[in-house]
């Protein structure tokens, strides 16, 4: 029995999806790493549990590509944290990724559950 079939296990990320999810999480507004992880967990109804070992390198990669920018700010509970926000390039990237993703999901759905 493989992990994917076990519904009690969180879903594994497909290559590159984490970056799209991070971009999406920042669309709502700037957030820090912990906040991004929380957002993804809640939004996916606990299906995505982001491992920090993947999250941090992904954030660094996005910074490198200039899709997000970082800034030190005070959090609402008065803690200094590093906030990430989408750059215009990141926004464009997200739009493109969303449409790609929808096409991918539709295609997968058709293959997996063909209409008879």
């Amino acid at each position, binding site marked *: 029995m493989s992990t994917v079939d076990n519904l009690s296990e969180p879903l594994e990320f497909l290559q590159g999806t984490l970056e799209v999810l991070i971009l999406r999480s920042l669309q709502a507004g700037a957030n820090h790493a*912990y906040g991004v992880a929380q957002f993804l967990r809640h939004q996916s109804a606990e299906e995505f549990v982001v491992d920090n*070992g993947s999250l*941090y390198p992904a954030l660094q990669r996005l910074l490198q590509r200039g899709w997000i920018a970082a800034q030190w700010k005070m959090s609402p509970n008065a803690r200094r944290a590093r906030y990430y926000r989408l750059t215009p390039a990141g926004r464009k990237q997200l739009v493109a990724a969303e449409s790609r993703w929808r096409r991918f999901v539709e295609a997968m759905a058709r293959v997996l559950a063909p209409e008879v």
Partner: protein
Amino acid sequence: MRAWWAKLCRLVGGGQRLDDELREEMSAHLEFELEESLARGLPEEAARADARRRFGNAAAIAERSREAWSFRWLAALARDLRYGVRSMARRPGFTAVAVLSLAVALGANTAVFSFVNTILIEKLPVAEAGRLVVLRQKDEQFHMENCCFTHPFFEELRKQPGDFEDLLAMSPVDAALTDREQTERLRADAVSGNYFRMLGVRAAAGRLLGESDDGAEGANPVCVIGYKLWQERFAGDPGVVGRRVLLNGQPFRIVGVSQRGFGGASLRTPSDLYVPASMAETFWGMKRDTFGFLFLIARVKPGVSAQQAAARLNATGPRIQRATGTRIGPHDDFLLYDGSQGIGSGREQLGKPVLVLLLLVGVLLLVACANLAALLLVRSVERTREAGLRAAIGASRAVLFRQFLAEAGLLAAAGGTGGWVLALGLIGVLLHLLPQDDGLTKLVHPDGLVFGFTAAVTLLAGLLFGLLPAWRASRADPLSAIHGAVLARPGRRPRVLSKVAIAAQIALSLALVFCAGLFSRTLHNLRAVDLGFQAENVAIVPIDLGGTAYRTQAAPFFTELLRRARALPETRAAALTQLSVVSGSMQSIALNVPGYTAPNGMRPVAYFTRVTGGYFRTLGTALVAGRDFTERDGDGRNGEGAAIVNEKFARQFLAGDALGKAFAYGGGRTVRVVGVARTSKFRYIREEPQPAMYLPIAPGGFPDSLYLEARTTASAAAAIGRLRGMVHDLAPRVPVGAATTMEMQIDAALSRERLLAFLSTLLGGVAAALAAVGLYGVLSFAVTRRTREIGIRLSVGARRSGIVALFLRESAWMVAAGVAAGVPLMLACGKLAGSLLYGLQGQDAGTAAAATAALGLVALAAALVPAARAARVDPVRALKHE
């Protein structure tokens, strides 16, 4: 583009700041997690643990994030190198041995490759040098190769359609250049009209020589000077074009300067001046078309091999030669040699020795690599704990592998740098061992190609000795490493691998020591050879009257010179001779011996030289029959003359009983044998006994150039000064050539053998020392690792001698395996060295046995030290150790 720039900025300046930022960000994150845990009502201590668990391995996260930042490999490399330097500094002894052994091996490779580059790779700086061939021809009658051809033959051969795109003729000549009352002796080339055009040389000023300059004999007294001469003698003055100068006393007009960097058609002996071949008489004193003096260099058509061209030349060449009046034998084949270095490249003489040397230093490098691989493997076991710990805190296998490889790379780079410096010194030593006049001194220099070679070999060596230990270390098992169980329970593989490396080292060292033995014994055999004369205390002073006013007074000059030389108090005997023996030069002449016919139907040929009376006494060669020359003896040009022949001559041509028999030589001059001398070495020390004849120097036939040879009562080297002074007193303007002694001349003749013996002994010694270090290192580690076991053995009654035997047995297996693998290597080396040896075969069993014994002793000594240490183990302390 921007991302790259940002990466670069971070790499150069911001690495530390980024690290701090990441650390701060992660600690803030951890605080959020902690708040969450506390909010769920966990007690403080448990909440902290829970937050850390959920956050994950901070070091690993940081490591992986960092990889996203910079040029990953570059930053990682910098880190690995920093770590490597620290790790090397922690073990200065090991590092010193490693770097030093690599430096020696790489230095030797660089130095020898510099010679290979100069002798075998470098080309003339001319157009399409790779397709040039030098024409030579076998001369069966005189057992030699003929270098030179006649002008009519050249002109006819050029007209033939064939495999040659173009064909030039040139002849190196000595020229005395006189300009504004100052005379200078230069090396010049007498060249055919197409010389410059064919070589693709341009003029730096004025014009070069063309076909019109090489027309009717003696019609064009013009010359082109080389760029170097133009700069040095004429200060680069463009007005030099059109200037009148004297060459060998005759007026010539300078018409141009050849381009910078061009030094004639011989890489080894550059030329300063070029004259048309039509002016040959000025330099040779003979009419151009009457004798063979021209070297021929051809450029073969693309796609035609030298063998094909030679085969076709043999079909047409001899016919043209006979038609143009050259006498040749039926089997006098043409030979085409590689001409990319022009004439006199020295390839035939030195090419094979340098290749053998390159092989030997290559083997030494392998030994050094095997040695380092063995030591690093042992260290990789020692360092399993360190590697395991690093793996435990999140280092991946790739990171560990890279880390250990970087350390190997550092060692290699340090060794390569040291080797480069060492090579510069070693080149000087090697040049010193070669004959001084070889012209190599100015030419051997490490250039870009040599640097590339060294860099490539260094890199290769680093990979060779670094890969295996790095792979080993990257397999470290974190669990057993942290339990500290490493020394007690190592994997078998590294031990086996390091033993294999030691055995390989012994095999390779054995081959090197064997070669050293072969070459040293060759040198020894050649030194012990019976020369047929006494080499000690003979001074040799060459005197050349050519181009001086004494030329017409040769007879009285030399007679007086000999009288004065004999009158010196330190002279025991003195004589004049046309040739100095075992110097590599020779003359031979065809004979007409009544009653003798050579087996191949050709006329017999013998070496000959002209000597004055006292020659045999001077050299210490015994006259076994008859008498020495007197001043009344003639050489046959005015009626019957006298000759002294050696025993070989007497046996071969005169049925052993030579005295009183007459024969003719050259153009029919008859001589009668008045004495028989012991056969002595004539041209080479290695030669088989050759028939030789000695003719008297008769008053009417004094040559311009003679050697004054004197046997002295004390050191001949000390007498040279007196003899030179004496020549100067007698005739201040006669130039005295490089005076020498017979022993120095023999040394020069053996320079190649000495070079091989010296270098192979050096390499063999270094290789044996490295093998000893490797064996010592591996065994010492085994002793450390098994201290506990030794303690147990001793405490249950093992004898200390038994412990020594235990470790000696372990090393004996490695040595035995090495020797077994070394035997075919020795055979291969012996086969390769074959033609360079003298007085023994390449598969000489005695030398092989001696080499094996020597290496066995070295190995025993290297093994005894750790074995003795093992025997001194204190059982109580060993058992308490862990």
